[in-house]
């Protein structure tokens, strides 16, 4: 049995389609990433899977329970951290935690082991009101509140949005430890660089899943050859290369350009000639393996 099974889910808001025929499967104990930009439909899918909203069509199960019929049983075995800060600002750290434990008919003491590692970091501030915590501490408390009833599946909707690079990598280390304790993690993010930290992922754009698999599978399915071009005056070069025969796309990636070409229409010699022709002889050019972001852009452009 799959931990999550979603089949043919669609949802419209009036005339606007939010999700179109979404199907996916998540295995027990894995970190499954839902990766895509704002407005792709990530939060709508979370709400449907966590039984907070009904889909127009399609069906799904969480741990074998139906997302429509068995909603009250599902709610007992999942943890959900919504994108917006969802704690009670006027309650203290400890009060929030106790409140969420009580809601699920449990106590903080009973499940303390499962949150201990994260909670110990905010325990010194137990009496502080949640509204007065820093962003990093709020995030840790929200995670504890979602974990305090020992859920089998943890849903995290954009837990790292607007968080700096250092705090983001700390958060992913926490997720890795949660996974090791046997919890299945379903997490969404707009940051492509977090894809490699997932066991498997689905890329979503404009309500459609455009690619799914392990990061390695997605990368190996990339259909073009990819070059990294660095050095020289990059921006004018980008404009020229983009309009070169056989070049599929050309975009900035940090300090280099990534150039995708169709090997049946052009080759390295022709591209090198084009670069030299434009006086950028000191460029460093090498063939590279695409990253998830290259794959996303290719699949999005289809």
């Amino acid at each position: 049995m799959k931990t999550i099974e979603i089949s043919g889910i669609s949802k419209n808001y009036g005339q606007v389609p939010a999700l179109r025929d979404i199907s996916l499967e998540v295995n027990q104990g894995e970190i499954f990433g839902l990766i895509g930009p704002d407005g792709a439909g990530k939060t709508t899918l979370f709400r449907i899977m966590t039984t907070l909203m009904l889909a127009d069509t399609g069906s799904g199960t969480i741990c074998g329970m139906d997302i429509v019929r068995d909603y009250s049983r599902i709610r007992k075995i999942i943890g959900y951290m919504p994108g917006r800060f969802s704690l009670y600002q006027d309650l203290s750290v400890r009060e929030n935690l106790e409140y969420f434990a009580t809601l699920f008919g449990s106590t903080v003491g009973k499940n303390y082991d499962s949150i201990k590692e994260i909670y110990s970091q905010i325990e010194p501030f137990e009496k502080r009101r949640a509204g007065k915590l820093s962003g990093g501490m709020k995030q840790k408390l929200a995670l504890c509140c979602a974990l305090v009833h020992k859920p089998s599946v943890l849903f995290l909707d954009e837990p790292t949005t607007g968080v700096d690079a250092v705090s983001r990598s700390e958060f992913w280390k926490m997720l890795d430890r949660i996974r090791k304790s046997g919890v299945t993690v379903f997490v969404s993010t707009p940051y492509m660089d977090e894809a490699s930290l997932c066991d498997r992922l689905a890329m979503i754009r404009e309500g459609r899943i455009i690619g799914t698999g392990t990061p390695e599978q997605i990368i190996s399915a990339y259909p073009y050859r990819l070059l990294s071009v660095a050095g020289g005056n990059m921006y004018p070069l980008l404009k020229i290369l983009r309009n070169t025969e056989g070049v599929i796309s050309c975009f900035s990636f940090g300090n280099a350009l990534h150039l995708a070409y169709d090997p049946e229409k052009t080759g390295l010699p022709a591209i090198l000639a084009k670069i030299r022709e434009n006086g950028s002889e000191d460029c460093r050019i090498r063939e590279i393996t695409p990253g998830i972001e290259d794959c996303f852009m290719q699949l999005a452009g289809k």
Partner: protein
Amino acid sequence: MNTEYAIRIRNLVKKFGDFTAVDNITFDVRKGEIFGFLGANGAGKTTAMRILCGLSRPTSGSGTVAGFDICREQEKIKRNIGYMSQKFSLYPDLTVRENIRLFGGIYGLKDREIKEKTERMLDMLEMKDAGGRFAAELPLGWKQKLSFSIALVHSPRIIFLDEPTGGVDPETRRRFWELIYDTAGNGTTVFVTTHYMDEAEYCDRVSIMVDGRIDAMDSPAGLKERFAARSMDEVFRIVAGKAVREE
């Protein structure tokens, strides 16, 4: 007015009670430069940026933005800079044309100028047919481009971009930076914050704030060399990783 620098800041300090949010920072931004203003959450970026935009007064220190004094000429600063926030700050219930007209009016442009600018802007953005649509209905990438153009409606000498690319898809994010390049190419100074470290590489120079101070400032290439790092992401982890204080 100084012809070489768009921003000159000397020993800027901002305290809230006992808390020093901005702790004695000094830096210059040259005209036409793309300057990346980085730092961890809570490092003091927003506080510093509010002072530069004339929205808050420093506790001590001095400086000029677009040639105007940050302590005494805040209204002139506001009139001479452009600002685009993360949230794009368009009015969702106004149409595209109405949004342009509103901001043009706020910045004191004449009706005829606004009309001309509107047409030119819609043309450039390839949004001719979308002029009558409500801002709320636009795709995210369009909203972003429109709000950028509106921030430039009064032809400011400097534009401040506060996390302009948060949450947008990878291609739109890159197309947006191409727009930034074109704007800087026309001589406008660009002051930008971002959480995407690959975007730090697109800046001419970058500063990294840690606990209210500027702990590193140089070109991306210079910073990578100094910290023996392969990417700006690595540089950021080394520099910002030393932060002591929380938000």
